[in-house]
């Protein structure tokens, strides 16, 4: 429990550093530190599947952030209505905090979840699917509809990104561009 609190404090410090730094590269690296600490948290909570996924996705996101955002003249809006933005942010944080304060009372104690549906999965997962990785048996057998939805979301995301950023979609009026490979 103590190491979880230490990691959580580390994550909060990393997130604050990432927001406050002016240098983009240092800020991206601070985000990476937050992701690494989150992966170790998952490992501490005995969820190696989620830890592996978090680690590889974090690496991918870091590479994309470094290569796709640095050294490009992206438009930044630094000036503006900072007072209004701060007031709105504080209001939303306060509302979320009040709602969370009421909701968290009804949650089961940390580390002792209420096992209603998942008890069946844990007891009969091996005999009914034959997969020794229970997470695999849940996401691809008991809850395969969810995986199908997730796959659809990823497919739609790829189609959307490829449609938005391809060269022919950003041409000026009357400009002729040829599609690249």
């Amino acid at each position, binding site marked *: 429990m103590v190491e979880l609190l230490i990691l959580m404090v580390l994550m909060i410090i990393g997130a604050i550093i990432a927001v406050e730094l002016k240098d983009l590269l240092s800020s991206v690296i601070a985000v990476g530190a937050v992701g690494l600490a989150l992966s170790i948290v998952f490992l501490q909570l005995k969820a*190696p*599947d989620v*830890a*592996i*996924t978090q680690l*590889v*996705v974090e*690496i*991918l996101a870091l*590479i*994309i952030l470094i*290569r*796709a955002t640095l*050294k*490009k*003249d*992206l*438009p930044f809006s630094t000036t503006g209505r900072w007072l209004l933005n701060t007031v709105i942010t504080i209001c939303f944080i306060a509302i979320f905090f009040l709602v969370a304060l009421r909701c968290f009372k009804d949650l089961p104690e940390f580390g002792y979840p209420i096992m209603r549906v998942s008890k069946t999965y844990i007891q009969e997962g*091996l005999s009914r*699917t*034959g*997969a*020794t*990785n229970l*997470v*695999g*048996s849940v*996401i*691809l*057998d008991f809850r*395969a*509809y969810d*995986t*199908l939805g997730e*796959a659809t979301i*990823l*497919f739609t*995301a*790829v189609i959307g*990104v*490829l449609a938005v*950023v*391809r060269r022919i979609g950003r041409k000026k009026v009357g400009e002729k561009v040829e599609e690249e*490979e």
Partner: protein
Amino acid sequence: MSHEHGKGMSLIVKTITRLTVGAIFLYGMYIVLHGHLTPGGGFAGGVIIALSFIHLMLAYGKEAAFKKLSRSAASVWESTGAIMFLTISLLGLTGGYFFLNFLHKGEPFHLFSAGIIPLCNIAISFKVGAGIFAIFVALVLVKFDTGKK
């Protein structure tokens, strides 16, 4: 980082990449194929496979990576994965319902066990790997012309 002429990074990086990129790819395949036995699965393994191609692209430049997996090939692989996944789920209808585990369960802790779960893992890894590589290529190679106003 000689990013200007697009030929990749220095000799040290290229040598290390030549030694490690195959191991990374094999590790991704291992994670996918053992997804029903050990932690991991189609999504994580697919991202690792995509990362091996991204590694190649960062070290050797985009031409070397496109020689291994071109943009159109990535689209084809992604669609193949999606269609494979849907086909496996629809084949369950032959035995009764959607996503039925219609294959033989096999013995636990063996590579060929658990019915359709390894096949679904492979399909998802195709989808995720090729899709994430396509997203990476699209986001990295896009050139915004906002600088010259």
